[in-house]
């Protein structure tokens, strides 16, 4: 936060990411941007995240691409191998599926396979999230896939300050970082970050302290968890909310310390529950805190279905504050 005492104006997440990209480009001329529609003649990205950047830094450093996701990531990888720091946009997370080979077989592995003689400092941005009626092919959260791949880092900011700070750290990072943006809170105003702010990758943030139950989450679900915490407080349950911010690597230390204190853990994310990030956290926590938990680790994720279109189904599909509060209440009250 600002160290002056003037009131700071909240900024939207899109603006924070835009600012982070602009500041990174200004600080380091090796930072590049590429992706579909990212340059200003094309509107600066379909959500305007890269608005103004091509005008300011030139067409060479901010390039609109053909619809060719393999070529986009390939271009980013190649440029990164020779000293550039590309930030590649793959519009929606579901479209990463056409570039998976480039991401997991190449970006993630080139450092290792070359015995450390090369590395791939790229950032891959994508957005996702249900709630807009975009249906089955535009809303999935697949952070668990990429977290299962050695060599990848996976980041999911929940607010403007973190979006800025995580993006700066992702660009600084010497390895490929998947940066997943939650559309449903793109346009929510949050307190801004200071210029140059960094959020170290792999460091969680305790968003609210509590003593009865820990709620571990990230991305858009942080707001739901905070809302749930309010509901729970009214019912006399004190919830601690931990925003992971990075899921690969995730901050075991912070999570274990919190759960050691509360004795109870809810993990919640928008991704479908089975084989999701919650499974990994549950697996680690039940092992490291065996015998010290007051109840099982409970997961609250989306229903195990494709994302439905129809509003009532889409709402039922999604986890939310009410479902988190319910689960926490059951866990605490038994």
């Amino acid at each position: 936060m600002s160290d002056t005492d003037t009131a700071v104006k909240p900024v939207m997440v899109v603006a924070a990411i835009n600012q982070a990209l602009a500041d990174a480009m200004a600080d380091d001329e090796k930072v590049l941007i590429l992706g579909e529609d990212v340059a200003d003649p094309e509107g600066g990205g379909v959500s305007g995240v890269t608005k103004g950047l091509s005008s300011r830094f030139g067409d060479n450093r901010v390039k609109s691409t053909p619809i060719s996701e393999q070529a986009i990531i390939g271009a980013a990888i190649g440029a990164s191998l020779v000293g550039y720091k590309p930030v590649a946009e793959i519009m929606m997370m579901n479209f990463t599926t056409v570039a998976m080979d480039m991401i997991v077989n190449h970006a993630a592995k080139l450092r290792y396979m070359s015995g450390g003689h090369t590395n791939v400092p790229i950032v891959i941005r994508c957005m996702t999230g249900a709630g807009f009626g975009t249906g089955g092919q535009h809303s999935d959260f697949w952070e668990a896939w990429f977290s299962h791949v050695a060599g990848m880092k996976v980041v999911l900011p929940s607010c403007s300050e973190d979006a800025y700070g995580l993006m700066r750290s992702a660009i600084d990072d010497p390895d490929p970082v998947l940066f997943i943006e939650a559309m449903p809170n793109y346009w929510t105003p949050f307190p801004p970050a200071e210029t140059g702010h960094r959020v170290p990758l792999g460091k969680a943030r305790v968003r609210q302290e509590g003593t009865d139950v820990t709620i571990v989450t990230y991305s858009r679900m942080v707001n739901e968890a905070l809302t749930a915490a309010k509901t729970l407080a009214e019912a006399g349950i004190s919830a601690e909310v931990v925003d992971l911010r990075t899921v690969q690597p995730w901050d075991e230390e912070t999570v274990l310390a919190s759960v050691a204190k509360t004795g109870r853990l809810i993990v919640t994310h928008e991704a479908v529950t089975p084989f999701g990030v919650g499974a990994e956290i549950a697996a680690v926590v039940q092992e490291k805190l065996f015998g010290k938990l007051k109840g099982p680790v409970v997961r609250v994720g989306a229903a195990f279905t494709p994302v439905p279109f129809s509003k009532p189904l889409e709402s039922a599909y999604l986890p939310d504050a009410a479902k988190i509060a319910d689960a926490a209440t059951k866990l605490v009250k038994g």
Partner: protein
Amino acid sequence: MTIPNGPDGPTQVEIFRRMALLKANDDYTRKMVTGGKLFIPYYSYRGQEVIPAAAFVNLTDQDYLCTIYRGIHDLLSKGLPLKDLWAEIAGRKTGSCGGKGGPMHLTYPEKGVMVTTGIVGSSMPIANGLAWGAQLSGDGRVAVATFGDAASNIGAFHESLNMASVWKLPVIFLCQNNTFGEHTPYAKATSVEKIADRAIAYGMPGIHVDGNDPIAMYNAMAEAVARARAGEGPTLIEAMTYRFHGHVFGDKDEYMDKDVKKQAIADDPYPRFRAKLIADGTATEDALAKIEADIQAEIEEAANAAWEAEFPDVAELTTDVYGEVA
């Protein structure tokens, strides 16, 4: 390949009927979106109606279609009933997909509408499979994949056209070149002057056609369909057209050249073809006006039925994920 003689009078009227249906449906949909009755990301196809209207009169209900998010014109011309469409885009349980698919995933196998995809390029690999099925069954069906100009730059396009050619599949790759992929103009993304020329890379005939000319469009498709039915393999058709609105209806379409857009709208093929039919004596003003009025009524009826229909029960959330194991 015999060169077709062009559509006869009744066929031209049928093409017009479909154009009228598509245009009126787009107009009404935009009205519903603007008016806040319909909450969907709407990919208006206004300006592109001639392509499926004229092309698909060459198809039967048994032929297959794979289309894309901007494909409601394709679907309607292929026979998706209005009431199934409207109920689906309104998310009602009476929709063609029970409300689960929505506007980007409309499906209606009774009329050969097999897949609507939201992933650029992905209509093509699946159309090959439908065509392979037809080839194996020897039932004479053809499969059509529609897609945009920018989709011709994605890997799936290449793999599909190559396989279709090697396997001599009865499939037609129908590219609707509206000169934009989202906000990016054709030349900034595409390295060839005409997408039809890419057919050379697959030893396949490529047809470049004015997709706003119903007669030319009909003839191009007739040729491709005849080739497919004769077992002579696939065709790539590039139909030139223009999108009157932004990529998603309501976006700031500042990336579209104002003058080009103005001119395109002035050249709207709909009134032009309407006038031509009357001038030719193929149809009377009254007959066409009646077609239009009937269609308008049908659309409104379908939309109204949708508003009144129920939403799917929440229990539907978890059905249709897996089928029953025999």
